[in-house]
């Protein structure tokens, strides 16, 4: 009851989208449009080595001959790729010596978003609260990464991608594009050509990363796209938990966010990757909002490697995203826990791919979709077992909840079994909130709104449990806010 009340109060205190502010900050842009020169511009701005520029140009040339895919169940007007800025960065004063030299306006942005960029702020928090390091990406560049020194002591590399290309070129060169090849798909290819920044993580063998790592993505500039690239490598026997958050200003235009995330997991290593996606979803008539076209893939290269994707998708006008697991190593396992909430005119086509290549690989998919307003939510997933994936096991559950007469929920699972010992189970349901349950809750004194919150929280509980503690509380509130006003 207390939690419900807190949620209600929280809903009351925020506007519909509290991250919708724009920061007036001195920024520099690449000229509008996309060409080889823009690719060179981005590479030069980042002082990249020649091999990186060549890689980008190769990607750009391949992108030119690819066609934009149309198979997802989403509708939007054709994107004019020439009508956007591909590089936008806050102007910086020479090289930064310490956090104190970061533009105070930028710091204010993150303070407003509740992201601790000062290490002492994290430390000054509640006693016993877990520490987490942050890489803050603002439009096309990473502005600051915290706790780098402390992480370096145990050998963990956590920095922006631009820095990694400069300082850890060999590692980047070895792994970049090895999970999501340059021309994997249209948007990944575009990203490969123009990616600006993102996070790079390397956890050495046997190291359990001492704190949660997180990246916070912020789009600020108008008419720009954000193309970040994240690469995480967990070497043998290591462990890392990584969180990702994102917000953008409220604008009437649509902005493109096409990211690529690559995870490499070696023998006995584990990566836990959590996302709370809260891009601006557009207004209630569907005007504005972010197009979130993201390629995320984990490659379990070693035996007994483990990866777990947890996502809470509440934002974006359009979400098009399938975090995948390639289970290559024998005995490796993949998990996917997802909550996708759409309201008003949002559209989401999301799910996962579990590709079983090694023997005795296991995977688990729990996907919960909630549609309200006039929105549409699709679960699309693939589970496949290669002939060599003896003893592969999968369990999939996808449930959809419909709130209101004008929303839509779809389930499109693909199942491909190519050997006799694979065992796949899939179940899916689509229902609305149960009248009986609502009646029961209201009969005990809850208002309709409270009763709905309670039932919805119960519906998504399985997934919320998988989130790191501090994220779970945030996510629970986010679920409530996203559905605000949808109860008739």
């Amino acid at each position: 009851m207390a939690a419900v009340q807190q949620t209600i109060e929280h809903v009351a205190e925020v506007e519909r989208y509290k991250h919708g502010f724009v920061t007036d900050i001195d920024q520099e842009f690449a000229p509008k449009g996309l060409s080889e020169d823009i690719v060179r511009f981005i590479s030069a701005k980042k002082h990249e080595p020649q091999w990186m520029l060549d890689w980008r140009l190769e990607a750009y040339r391949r992108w030119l001959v690819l066609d934009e895919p149309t198979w997802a169940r989403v509708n939007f007007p054709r994107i004019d790729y020439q009508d956007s800025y591909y590089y936008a960065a806050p102007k910086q004063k020479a090289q930064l010596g310490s956090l104190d030299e970061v533009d105070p306006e930028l710091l204010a942005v993150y303070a407003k978003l509740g992201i601790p960029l000062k290490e002492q702020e994290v430390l000054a928090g509640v006693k016993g609260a877990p520490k987490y390091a942050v890489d803050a990406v603002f439009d096309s560049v990473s502005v600051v990464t915290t706790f780098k020194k402390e992480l370096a002591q145990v050998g963990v590399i956590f920095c922006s991608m631009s820095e990694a290309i400069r300082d850890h070129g060999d590692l980047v060169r070895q792994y970049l594009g090895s999970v999501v090849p340059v021309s994997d798909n249209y948007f990944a290819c575009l990203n490969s050509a123009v990616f600006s920044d993102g996070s790079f993580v390397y956890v050495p063998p046997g190291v359990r990363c001492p704190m949660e790592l997180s990246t916070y993505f912020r789009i600020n500039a108008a008419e720009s796209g954000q193309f970040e690239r994240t690469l995480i490598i967990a070497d043998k026997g290591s462990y890392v938990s990584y969180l990702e958050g994102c917000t953008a200003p409220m604008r009437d235009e649509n902005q493109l966010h096409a990211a690529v995330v690559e995870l490499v997991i070696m023998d006995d290593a584990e990566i836990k990757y959590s996302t709370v996606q809260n891009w601006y979803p557009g207004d209630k008539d569907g005007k504005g909002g972010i197009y979130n076209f993201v390629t995320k893939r984990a490659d379990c290269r070693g035996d007994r490697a483990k990866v777990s994707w947890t996502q809470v998708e509440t934002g974006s006008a359009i979400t098009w995203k399938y975090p995948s697991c390639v289970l290559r190593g024998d005995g490796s396992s993949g998990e996917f826990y997802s909550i996708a909430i759409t309201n008003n005119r949002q559209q989401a086509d999301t799910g996962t791919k579990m590709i079983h290549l090694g023997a005795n690989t296991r995977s688990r998919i729990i996907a919960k979709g909630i549609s309200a307003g006039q929105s549409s939510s699709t679960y699309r997933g693939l589970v496949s077992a290669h002939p060599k994936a003896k003893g592969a096991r999968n369990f999939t559950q996808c449930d959809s909840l419909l709130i209101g007469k004008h929303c839509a929920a779809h389930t499109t699972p693909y199942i491909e079994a190519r050997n006799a010992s694979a065992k796949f189970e899939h179940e899916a349901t689509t229902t609305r909130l149960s009248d009986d349950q609502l009646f029961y809750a209201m009969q005990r004194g809850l208002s309709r709104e409270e009763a709905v919150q309670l039932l919805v929280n119960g519906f998504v509980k399985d997934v919320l449990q998988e989130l790191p503690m501090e994220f779970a509380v945030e996510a629970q509130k986010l679920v409530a806010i996203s559905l605000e006003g949808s109860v008739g």
Partner: protein
Amino acid sequence: MSLARAITTGDLTQLPSRRDEDWRWSDLRGLIRVLPAPSPAHIGAGTPGPFAGLANREVVIVNGYGPAAIKVAAGETQTLALRFIAARDAGAHVARAAIEVDAGATLTLLESYEGEGTDYVVERDLAISVAKGARLERVIIAGDDQDAVSVSRADIDLSPGATLAQTVLTHGGKRQRLETHVAHPGAEASVRLDGVYVLGAKRHADLTTVVTHAGANGVTDQLTKGVVNGQARGVFQGRIVVSPGADQTDAKMGHHALVLSDRAEVDAKPELEIYADDVACAHGNTVGALDDESLFYARQRGIPEAEARAMLIGAFLGEVVDRIEHDGARGVARAWLAEQLGTRP
């Protein structure tokens, strides 16, 4: 884009390919490099069909030649054997027929797809309308040759209060697609769509269904089960669409398959596409091997392994066959199943 259009125009680019999302597991363009010559005309069949003796009326379409319109008058009850035969000299042809079941009538439609020839390429298109309160039970034995390519498509239009029950039994072909499209008005109409596939060697069968609920208060119940052995490939694609306003729809879909060989494959796509909120829709899908413990139990009791396997598989698939309402047809279906399992233990 369809096989029928490719056959009638001779234009192979009209064939669906892997790049078409609905055909990704049943590629025709990559398979058919040259179309065989058009099938010559034939009248009548020389041999009895699999449902011989059960029907009070028989319609035979050989190499695409035969009666094109079948009508069951209002209130009438009929058991009709409809035989699509690809004769020994069959090449490429399209066979078409339309069936009208008038208000209040009851039709048991016993369909057989008989392949006397070998490497024929055919499409069979059926347009069926079931009027108000009428009942249609379709039992189909798709007996294509192992070198044959076929697409069989039925478009079934149901009126309020109509009942459709369907069971497809197949042992596949070189490439075989069995499509059923149902326009479901809701309105107390009810649909049962079942399928059984038993595939061995290099056979392929694709059971694709689309049920579109346009109005409120409709029921759909789907159950498909299959067994694949050798290098065979079984495909199940089921889609249930609930249109805006089709509230109180009760739809369930189940697909369960056994993979008996490491070179066999099962692909499934059970889809729900839902635009109304007051519905109860669910689907379940499982793919796995035969349960070792059940096998052990049977062998422990003195049943030889091969026999125990056939028995377990028979029980697994028998659940679908038992749902056939027409007694005679159910008997034929059971015999068909025993024959398939007997030859492929």
